[in-house]
Protein backbone atom coordinates (compact mmCIF):
# COMPACT_ATOMS: atom_id res chain seq x y z
CA UNK A 1 0.00 0.00 0.00
CA UNK A 2 1.88 3.02 -1.28
CA UNK A 3 -0.68 5.63 -0.31
CA UNK A 4 1.00 6.96 2.91
CA UNK A 5 4.39 7.28 1.15
CA UNK A 6 2.82 9.39 -1.56
CA UNK A 7 1.13 11.63 1.00
CA UNK A 8 4.40 12.16 2.91
CA UNK A 9 6.26 12.97 -0.33
CA UNK A 10 3.53 15.39 -1.39
CA UNK A 11 3.77 17.18 1.97
CA UNK A 12 7.54 17.49 1.49
CA UNK A 13 6.93 18.77 -2.03
CA UNK A 14 4.54 21.48 -0.86
CA UNK A 15 6.84 22.45 2.02
CA UNK A 16 9.81 22.89 -0.32
CA UNK A 17 7.69 24.89 -2.80
CA UNK A 18 6.56 27.23 -0.01
CA UNK A 19 10.13 27.71 1.21
CA UNK A 20 11.23 28.59 -2.34
CA UNK A 21 8.50 31.22 -2.33
CA UNK A 22 9.52 32.65 1.04
CA UNK A 23 13.33 32.54 0.89
CA UNK A 24 15.09 35.80 0.02
CA UNK A 25 18.44 34.03 -0.30
CA UNK A 26 18.29 32.89 -3.92
CA UNK A 27 21.20 30.48 -3.47
CA UNK A 28 19.24 28.56 -0.84
CA UNK A 29 16.12 28.75 -3.00
CA UNK A 30 18.04 27.23 -5.93
CA UNK A 31 19.22 24.31 -3.81
CA UNK A 32 15.68 23.71 -2.54
CA UNK A 33 14.42 23.74 -6.14
CA UNK A 34 16.81 20.82 -6.72
CA UNK A 35 15.36 18.96 -3.74
CA UNK A 36 11.88 19.76 -5.02
CA UNK A 37 12.72 18.09 -8.34
CA UNK A 38 14.20 15.03 -6.64
CA UNK A 39 11.08 14.54 -4.50
CA UNK A 40 8.85 14.89 -7.55
CA UNK A 41 11.00 12.28 -9.33
CA UNK A 42 10.26 9.92 -6.43
CA UNK A 43 6.55 10.63 -6.81
CA UNK A 44 6.67 9.93 -10.54
CA UNK A 45 8.18 6.52 -9.76
CA UNK A 46 5.32 5.79 -7.37
CA UNK A 47 2.87 6.75 -10.13
CA UNK A 48 4.53 4.16 -12.44
CA UNK A 49 6.08 6.86 -14.66
CA UNK A 50 9.63 5.52 -14.44
CA UNK A 51 10.77 7.22 -17.65
CA UNK A 52 9.50 10.59 -16.46
CA UNK A 53 11.19 10.09 -13.08
CA UNK A 54 14.51 9.37 -14.79
CA UNK A 55 14.30 12.56 -16.80
CA UNK A 56 13.15 14.73 -13.91
CA UNK A 57 15.94 13.51 -11.61
CA UNK A 58 18.66 14.18 -14.18
CA UNK A 59 17.23 17.49 -15.41
CA UNK A 60 15.66 19.01 -12.32
CA UNK A 61 18.08 17.96 -9.63
CA UNK A 62 21.15 18.07 -11.87
CA UNK A 63 21.36 20.39 -14.86
CA UNK A 64 18.64 22.86 -13.89
CA UNK A 65 20.23 23.56 -10.48
CA UNK A 66 23.62 24.14 -12.12
CA UNK A 67 22.09 26.59 -14.60
CA UNK A 68 20.27 28.57 -11.92
CA UNK A 69 23.45 28.73 -9.82
CA UNK A 70 25.45 29.95 -12.85
CA UNK A 71 22.82 32.64 -13.40
CA UNK A 72 23.10 33.69 -9.76
CA UNK A 73 26.88 33.93 -10.19
CA UNK A 74 26.37 36.24 -13.19
CA UNK A 75 23.64 38.35 -11.54
CA UNK A 76 23.02 38.44 -7.78
CA UNK A 77 22.07 35.90 -5.14
CA UNK A 78 20.03 38.34 -3.06
CA UNK A 79 16.47 39.37 -3.69
CA UNK A 80 15.16 42.79 -2.66
CA UNK A 81 12.24 42.17 -0.33
CA UNK A 82 9.46 44.64 -0.99
CA UNK A 83 6.37 45.30 1.10
CA UNK A 84 3.83 42.48 1.18
CA UNK A 85 1.21 42.85 -1.52
CA UNK A 86 -2.28 41.53 -0.85
CA UNK A 87 -3.52 41.68 -4.44
CA UNK A 88 -1.44 38.77 -5.88
CA UNK A 89 -2.51 36.57 -2.95
CA UNK A 90 -6.19 37.34 -3.60
CA UNK A 91 -5.79 36.58 -7.32
CA UNK A 92 -4.05 33.29 -6.55
CA UNK A 93 -6.63 32.24 -3.96
CA UNK A 94 -9.57 32.97 -6.29
CA UNK A 95 -7.88 31.08 -9.16
CA UNK A 96 -7.12 28.16 -6.85
CA UNK A 97 -10.70 28.03 -5.56
CA UNK A 98 -12.05 28.01 -9.13
CA UNK A 99 -9.68 25.17 -10.06
CA UNK A 100 -10.64 23.21 -6.92
CA UNK A 101 -14.29 23.53 -7.89
CA UNK A 102 -13.37 22.24 -11.34
CA UNK A 103 -11.77 19.08 -9.95
CA UNK A 104 -15.08 17.90 -8.47
CA UNK A 105 -16.03 16.56 -11.91
CA UNK A 106 -12.69 14.81 -12.46
CA UNK A 107 -12.33 11.02 -12.31
CA UNK A 108 -10.88 9.67 -9.06
CA UNK A 109 -7.16 8.97 -8.67
CA UNK A 110 -6.31 5.54 -10.06
CA UNK A 111 -9.78 4.96 -11.52
CA UNK A 112 -9.32 2.38 -14.32
CA UNK A 113 -12.52 3.53 -16.09
CA UNK A 114 -11.39 7.17 -16.41
CA UNK A 115 -11.87 8.57 -19.95
CA UNK A 116 -8.11 8.99 -20.43
CA UNK A 117 -7.64 5.21 -20.44
CA UNK A 118 -10.34 4.55 -23.02
CA UNK A 119 -9.15 5.85 -26.40
CA UNK A 120 -5.74 5.05 -27.83
CA UNK A 121 -3.93 3.75 -24.74
CA UNK A 122 -5.21 0.12 -25.00
CA UNK A 123 -4.11 0.00 -28.65
CA UNK A 124 -0.65 1.22 -27.69
CA UNK A 125 -0.32 -1.41 -24.96
CA UNK A 126 -1.46 -4.30 -27.17
CA UNK A 127 0.53 -3.07 -30.16
CA UNK A 128 3.81 -2.78 -28.28
CA UNK A 129 4.77 -6.42 -28.69
CA UNK A 130 2.65 -7.21 -31.77
CA UNK A 131 3.79 -4.35 -34.02
CA UNK A 132 7.23 -3.59 -32.62
CA UNK A 133 8.55 -6.39 -30.44
CA UNK A 134 9.71 -3.70 -28.01
CA UNK A 135 8.62 -4.18 -24.39
CA UNK A 136 8.91 -0.54 -23.26
CA UNK A 137 5.59 0.95 -24.38
CA UNK A 138 6.76 4.48 -23.63
CA UNK A 139 9.60 4.10 -26.17
CA UNK A 140 7.16 2.88 -28.84
CA UNK A 141 4.76 5.74 -28.33
CA UNK A 142 7.57 8.29 -28.16
CA UNK A 143 9.44 7.27 -31.28
CA UNK A 144 6.75 5.81 -33.48
CA UNK A 145 3.07 6.34 -32.65
CA UNK A 146 3.80 9.94 -31.68
CA UNK A 147 6.97 10.37 -33.71
CA UNK A 148 5.87 13.73 -35.12
CA UNK A 149 5.43 15.19 -31.62
CA UNK A 150 8.87 14.03 -30.61
CA UNK A 151 10.43 15.45 -33.77
CA UNK A 152 8.80 18.78 -32.92
CA UNK A 153 10.09 18.64 -29.33
CA UNK A 154 13.62 17.91 -30.55
CA UNK A 155 13.46 20.90 -32.88
CA UNK A 156 12.26 23.10 -29.98
CA UNK A 157 15.31 22.02 -27.93
CA UNK A 158 17.52 22.75 -30.96
CA UNK A 159 15.99 26.21 -31.39
CA UNK A 160 16.15 27.10 -27.69
CA UNK A 161 19.82 26.12 -27.56
CA UNK A 162 20.59 28.32 -30.56
CA UNK A 163 18.78 31.14 -28.77
CA UNK A 164 20.92 30.66 -25.64
CA UNK A 165 24.10 30.60 -27.74
CA UNK A 166 23.09 33.79 -29.57
CA UNK A 167 22.30 35.57 -26.30
CA UNK A 168 25.30 34.48 -24.26
CA UNK A 169 28.22 33.74 -26.58
CA UNK A 170 27.85 36.78 -28.82
CA UNK A 171 31.00 38.89 -28.80
CA UNK A 172 33.20 35.98 -27.84
CA UNK A 173 34.01 34.56 -31.25
CA UNK A 174 35.49 37.53 -33.07
CA UNK A 175 38.10 38.17 -30.40
CA UNK A 176 40.22 35.19 -31.35
CA UNK A 177 41.32 34.68 -34.96
CA UNK A 178 41.22 30.91 -34.58
CA UNK A 179 39.72 28.45 -32.12
CA UNK A 180 43.07 27.63 -30.53
CA UNK A 181 44.04 31.21 -29.78
CA UNK A 182 40.56 31.85 -28.41
CA UNK A 183 40.93 28.90 -26.06
CA UNK A 184 44.28 30.19 -24.86
CA UNK A 185 42.91 33.68 -24.36
CA UNK A 186 40.20 32.23 -22.13
CA UNK A 187 42.63 30.15 -20.11
CA UNK A 188 44.79 33.21 -19.53
CA UNK A 189 42.31 35.03 -17.30
CA UNK A 190 40.20 32.07 -16.22
CA UNK A 191 41.00 31.22 -12.57
CA UNK A 192 41.64 27.51 -11.98
CA UNK A 193 38.61 25.70 -10.62
CA UNK A 194 38.83 25.80 -6.81
CA UNK A 195 36.78 22.59 -6.56
CA UNK A 196 39.64 20.72 -8.19
CA UNK A 197 41.70 21.29 -5.02
CA UNK A 198 39.12 19.54 -2.81
CA UNK A 199 40.33 15.94 -2.56
CA UNK A 200 36.96 14.37 -1.78
CA UNK A 201 35.18 16.08 -4.66
CA UNK A 202 37.96 15.26 -7.10
CA UNK A 203 38.29 11.59 -6.20
CA UNK A 204 34.57 10.90 -5.95
CA UNK A 205 33.85 12.61 -9.25
CA UNK A 206 36.75 10.79 -10.93
CA UNK A 207 35.22 7.52 -9.82
CA UNK A 208 31.65 8.50 -10.69
CA UNK A 209 31.93 10.29 -14.03
CA UNK A 210 32.92 7.19 -16.09
CA UNK A 211 30.07 5.27 -14.47
CA UNK A 212 27.61 8.08 -15.22
CA UNK A 213 28.65 8.14 -18.87
CA UNK A 214 28.49 4.35 -19.08
CA UNK A 215 25.05 4.39 -17.47
CA UNK A 216 23.92 6.96 -20.06
CA UNK A 217 24.88 4.53 -22.84
CA UNK A 218 23.01 1.74 -21.05
CA UNK A 219 19.93 3.96 -20.79
CA UNK A 220 20.24 4.85 -24.48
CA UNK A 221 20.60 1.35 -25.88
CA UNK A 222 18.56 -0.54 -23.31
CA UNK A 223 15.69 1.95 -23.60
CA UNK A 224 13.71 -0.51 -25.71
CA UNK A 225 13.56 -3.09 -22.94
CA UNK A 226 13.62 -1.09 -19.72
CA UNK A 227 13.02 2.50 -18.71
CA UNK A 228 15.13 4.85 -20.78
CA UNK A 229 15.62 6.31 -24.21
CA UNK A 230 17.23 9.19 -26.03
CA UNK A 231 15.95 12.02 -23.85
CA UNK A 232 16.97 10.35 -20.59
CA UNK A 233 20.35 9.22 -21.92
CA UNK A 234 20.99 12.69 -23.31
CA UNK A 235 20.38 14.48 -20.03
CA UNK A 236 22.36 11.88 -18.04
CA UNK A 237 25.34 12.11 -20.42
CA UNK A 238 25.06 15.90 -20.34
CA UNK A 239 24.93 15.87 -16.52
CA UNK A 240 28.10 13.74 -16.43
CA UNK A 241 29.94 16.22 -18.66
CA UNK A 242 28.63 19.16 -16.64
CA UNK A 243 29.90 17.51 -13.43
CA UNK A 244 33.32 17.10 -15.06
CA UNK A 245 33.29 20.76 -16.06
CA UNK A 246 32.30 21.88 -12.56
CA UNK A 247 35.09 19.98 -10.84
CA UNK A 248 37.95 20.30 -13.33
CA UNK A 249 37.12 23.65 -14.89
CA UNK A 250 35.33 24.71 -18.05
CA UNK A 251 38.52 24.94 -20.12
CA UNK A 252 39.51 21.34 -19.32
CA UNK A 253 36.07 20.17 -20.43
CA UNK A 254 36.32 22.27 -23.61
CA UNK A 255 39.60 20.50 -24.30
CA UNK A 256 37.86 17.14 -24.03
CA UNK A 257 34.70 18.09 -25.94
CA UNK A 258 35.28 21.18 -28.12
CA UNK A 259 32.23 23.46 -28.60
CA UNK A 260 32.49 23.05 -32.40
CA UNK A 261 31.94 19.29 -32.04
CA UNK A 262 28.88 19.86 -29.87
CA UNK A 263 27.45 22.43 -32.28
CA UNK A 264 27.83 19.95 -35.12
CA UNK A 265 26.34 17.18 -32.95
CA UNK A 266 23.30 19.30 -32.08
CA UNK A 267 22.48 19.76 -35.75
CA UNK A 268 23.42 16.16 -36.57
CA UNK A 269 20.99 14.76 -33.99
CA UNK A 270 18.02 16.67 -35.44
CA UNK A 271 19.18 15.76 -38.94
CA UNK A 272 19.35 12.07 -38.03
CA UNK A 273 15.77 12.19 -36.74
CA UNK A 274 14.39 14.09 -39.73
CA UNK A 275 16.59 12.10 -42.12
CA UNK A 276 15.18 8.81 -40.86
CA UNK A 277 11.75 10.12 -41.83
CA UNK A 278 12.98 11.13 -45.29
CA UNK A 279 14.60 7.70 -45.72
CA UNK A 280 11.17 6.15 -45.04
CA UNK A 281 9.72 8.34 -47.79
CA UNK A 282 12.44 7.33 -50.25
CA UNK A 283 11.84 3.64 -49.51
CA UNK A 284 8.20 4.11 -50.43
CA UNK A 285 6.55 4.44 -47.01
CA UNK A 286 4.99 7.32 -45.13
CA UNK A 287 7.08 9.85 -43.20
CA UNK A 288 8.48 8.16 -40.06
CA UNK A 289 6.78 4.86 -40.97
CA UNK A 290 9.72 2.61 -40.14
CA UNK A 291 8.14 -0.64 -41.35
CA UNK A 292 9.68 -0.13 -44.81
CA UNK A 293 13.23 -0.56 -43.46
CA UNK A 294 12.88 -4.34 -43.48
CA UNK A 295 10.73 -5.98 -46.15
CA UNK A 296 10.69 -9.36 -44.42
CA UNK A 297 9.65 -8.27 -40.94
CA UNK A 298 7.80 -5.00 -40.31
CA UNK A 299 8.48 -5.26 -36.58
CA UNK A 300 12.22 -5.55 -37.21
CA UNK A 301 12.16 -2.50 -39.47
CA UNK A 302 10.27 -0.50 -36.87
CA UNK A 303 12.78 -1.54 -34.22
CA UNK A 304 15.62 -0.26 -36.41
CA UNK A 305 13.80 3.02 -37.06
CA UNK A 306 13.21 3.57 -33.35
CA UNK A 307 16.91 2.94 -32.60
CA UNK A 308 17.93 5.54 -35.22
CA UNK A 309 15.44 8.13 -34.01
CA UNK A 310 16.34 7.62 -30.34
CA UNK A 311 20.00 7.93 -31.29
CA UNK A 312 19.30 11.27 -32.95
CA UNK A 313 17.43 12.49 -29.87
CA UNK A 314 20.23 11.32 -27.55
CA UNK A 315 22.94 13.12 -29.54
CA UNK A 316 20.91 16.33 -29.84
CA UNK A 317 19.97 16.46 -26.15
CA UNK A 318 23.52 15.71 -24.93
CA UNK A 319 24.96 18.46 -27.13
CA UNK A 320 22.20 20.91 -26.20
CA UNK A 321 22.69 20.45 -22.44
CA UNK A 322 26.49 20.74 -22.64
CA UNK A 323 26.38 23.75 -24.98
CA UNK A 324 23.99 25.56 -22.64
CA UNK A 325 26.40 24.87 -19.77
CA UNK A 326 29.30 26.24 -21.88
CA UNK A 327 27.32 29.37 -22.69
CA UNK A 328 26.56 30.15 -19.04
CA UNK A 329 30.00 29.12 -17.76
CA UNK A 330 31.90 31.11 -20.38
CA UNK A 331 29.84 34.28 -20.05
CA UNK A 332 31.93 35.92 -17.32
CA UNK A 333 35.15 35.72 -19.34
CA UNK A 334 33.38 37.11 -22.43
CA UNK A 335 32.02 39.91 -20.26
CA UNK A 336 35.49 40.69 -18.90
CA UNK A 337 36.94 40.61 -22.41
CA UNK A 338 34.10 42.79 -23.71
CA UNK A 339 34.68 45.40 -21.00
CA UNK A 340 38.20 46.09 -22.23
CA UNK A 341 37.10 46.69 -25.82
Amino acid at each position, binding site marked *: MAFPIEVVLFLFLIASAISVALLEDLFAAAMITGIFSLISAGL*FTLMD*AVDVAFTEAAVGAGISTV*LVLSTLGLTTDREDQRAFHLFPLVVVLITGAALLYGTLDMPLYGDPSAPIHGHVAPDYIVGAMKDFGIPNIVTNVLASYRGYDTLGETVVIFTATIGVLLLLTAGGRERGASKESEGQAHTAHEPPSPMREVVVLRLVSQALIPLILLFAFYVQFHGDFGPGGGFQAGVIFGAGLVLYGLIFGLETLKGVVPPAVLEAGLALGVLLYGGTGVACLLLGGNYLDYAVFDHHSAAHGRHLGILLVEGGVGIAVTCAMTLIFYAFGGRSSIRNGGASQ
Partner: protein
Amino acid sequence: MSASLGLWNYWVVIVLMMIGLYIVIARDSLVKKVMGLNIFQVSVIMFYVSMGKVDGGTAPIVPEGGVEGVVFSNPLPHVLMLTAIVVGIATTALALALVVRIQERYGTVEEDEIRDMDFRDTEHGDP
Protein backbone atom coordinates in the same frame (compact mmCIF):
# COMPACT_ATOMS: atom_id res chain seq x y z
CA MET B 1 -16.06 10.75 2.03
CA SER B 2 -13.87 8.38 0.05
CA ALA B 3 -15.21 9.92 -3.15
CA SER B 4 -13.82 13.34 -2.32
CA LEU B 5 -10.56 12.00 -0.85
CA GLY B 6 -9.94 10.25 -4.17
CA LEU B 7 -9.33 13.65 -5.72
CA TRP B 8 -6.35 14.49 -3.49
CA ASN B 9 -3.85 14.31 -6.34
CA TYR B 10 -5.57 17.22 -8.13
CA TRP B 11 -5.64 19.27 -4.94
CA VAL B 12 -1.92 18.86 -4.36
CA VAL B 13 -1.32 19.85 -7.98
CA ILE B 14 -3.48 22.96 -7.55
CA VAL B 15 -1.67 23.97 -4.35
CA LEU B 16 1.71 23.64 -6.11
CA MET B 17 0.42 25.46 -9.17
CA MET B 18 -0.85 28.37 -7.08
CA ILE B 19 2.46 28.63 -5.19
CA GLY B 20 4.24 28.84 -8.55
CA LEU B 21 1.74 31.39 -9.86
CA TYR B 22 2.09 33.49 -6.70
CA ILE B 23 5.89 33.60 -7.10
CA VAL B 24 5.55 34.68 -10.73
CA ILE B 25 3.05 37.46 -9.92
CA ALA B 26 4.27 38.74 -6.56
CA ARG B 27 8.06 38.55 -6.61
CA ASP B 28 10.12 41.15 -8.46
CA SER B 29 13.32 39.20 -8.97
CA LEU B 30 13.40 37.71 -12.46
CA VAL B 31 15.43 34.70 -11.29
CA LYS B 32 12.76 34.01 -8.67
CA LYS B 33 10.07 34.24 -11.34
CA VAL B 34 11.88 31.56 -13.37
CA MET B 35 11.95 29.34 -10.26
CA GLY B 36 8.21 29.94 -9.85
CA LEU B 37 7.62 28.94 -13.46
CA ASN B 38 9.58 25.74 -12.78
CA ILE B 39 7.33 24.87 -9.85
CA PHE B 40 4.31 25.61 -12.04
CA GLN B 41 5.71 23.32 -14.73
CA VAL B 42 6.30 20.43 -12.31
CA SER B 43 2.72 20.78 -11.08
CA VAL B 44 1.37 20.48 -14.64
CA ILE B 45 3.57 17.41 -15.23
CA MET B 46 2.30 15.94 -11.95
CA PHE B 47 -1.28 16.57 -13.12
CA TYR B 48 -0.83 14.60 -16.34
CA VAL B 49 1.16 11.76 -14.78
CA SER B 50 -1.29 11.33 -11.89
CA MET B 51 -4.17 11.09 -14.37
CA GLY B 52 -2.37 8.20 -16.07
CA LYS B 53 -2.09 6.16 -12.87
CA VAL B 54 -4.31 3.06 -12.69
CA ASP B 55 -5.04 1.31 -9.37
CA GLY B 56 -2.97 -1.86 -9.09
CA GLY B 57 -1.20 -0.95 -12.32
CA THR B 58 2.50 -1.20 -13.04
CA ALA B 59 5.03 0.70 -15.13
CA PRO B 60 4.18 0.39 -18.87
CA ILE B 61 6.90 -2.12 -19.74
CA VAL B 62 5.69 -5.49 -21.03
CA PRO B 63 7.05 -8.36 -18.92
CA GLU B 64 8.28 -11.60 -20.50
CA GLY B 65 4.91 -13.29 -20.07
CA GLY B 66 3.16 -10.80 -22.39
CA VAL B 67 0.36 -8.33 -21.77
CA GLU B 68 -2.28 -10.89 -20.74
CA GLY B 69 -3.64 -10.25 -17.26
CA VAL B 70 -1.26 -7.36 -16.50
CA VAL B 71 -2.63 -3.90 -15.66
CA PHE B 72 -0.48 -1.06 -16.97
CA SER B 73 -0.65 2.61 -16.13
CA ASN B 74 -1.39 4.79 -19.14
CA PRO B 75 1.85 5.31 -21.11
CA LEU B 76 0.64 8.29 -23.14
CA PRO B 77 0.97 11.00 -20.42
CA HIS B 78 4.43 9.64 -19.60
CA VAL B 79 5.60 10.17 -23.17
CA LEU B 80 4.17 13.67 -23.42
CA MET B 81 5.61 14.73 -20.06
CA LEU B 82 9.08 13.29 -20.44
CA THR B 83 9.65 15.29 -23.60
CA ALA B 84 8.07 18.32 -21.89
CA ILE B 85 10.68 18.15 -19.11
CA VAL B 86 13.60 18.28 -21.55
CA VAL B 87 11.95 21.03 -23.59
CA GLY B 88 11.30 22.80 -20.27
CA ILE B 89 14.98 22.84 -19.31
CA ALA B 90 15.92 24.19 -22.75
CA THR B 91 13.38 27.01 -22.52
CA THR B 92 14.34 27.68 -18.88
CA ALA B 93 17.92 28.07 -20.04
CA LEU B 94 16.71 30.56 -22.66
CA ALA B 95 14.85 32.53 -19.96
CA LEU B 96 17.91 32.54 -17.70
CA ALA B 97 20.08 33.71 -20.61
CA LEU B 98 17.70 36.64 -21.10
CA VAL B 99 17.93 37.39 -17.36
CA VAL B 100 21.74 37.45 -17.60
CA ARG B 101 21.61 39.89 -20.52
CA ILE B 102 19.10 42.08 -18.67
CA GLN B 103 21.47 42.18 -15.69
CA GLU B 104 24.30 43.29 -18.00
CA ARG B 105 22.18 46.00 -19.64
CA TYR B 106 20.33 47.37 -16.58
CA GLY B 107 22.57 46.34 -13.70
CA THR B 108 19.65 44.72 -11.87
CA VAL B 109 17.19 41.82 -12.21
CA GLU B 110 14.47 43.41 -10.08
CA GLU B 111 11.46 44.01 -12.30
CA ASP B 112 10.27 47.22 -10.62
CA GLU B 113 13.71 48.86 -10.92
CA ILE B 114 13.91 47.88 -14.60
CA ARG B 115 10.45 49.37 -15.17
CA ASP B 116 11.47 52.62 -13.43
CA MET B 117 14.55 52.88 -15.65
CA ASP B 118 12.48 52.33 -18.78
CA PHE B 119 10.00 55.03 -17.71
CA ARG B 120 12.82 57.49 -16.97
CA ASP B 121 14.30 56.85 -20.39
CA THR B 122 10.96 57.45 -22.09
CA GLU B 123 10.42 60.76 -20.24
CA HIS B 124 13.79 62.04 -21.41
CA GLY B 125 12.93 61.05 -24.97
CA ASP B 126 15.86 58.61 -24.98
CA PRO B 127 14.98 55.22 -26.48
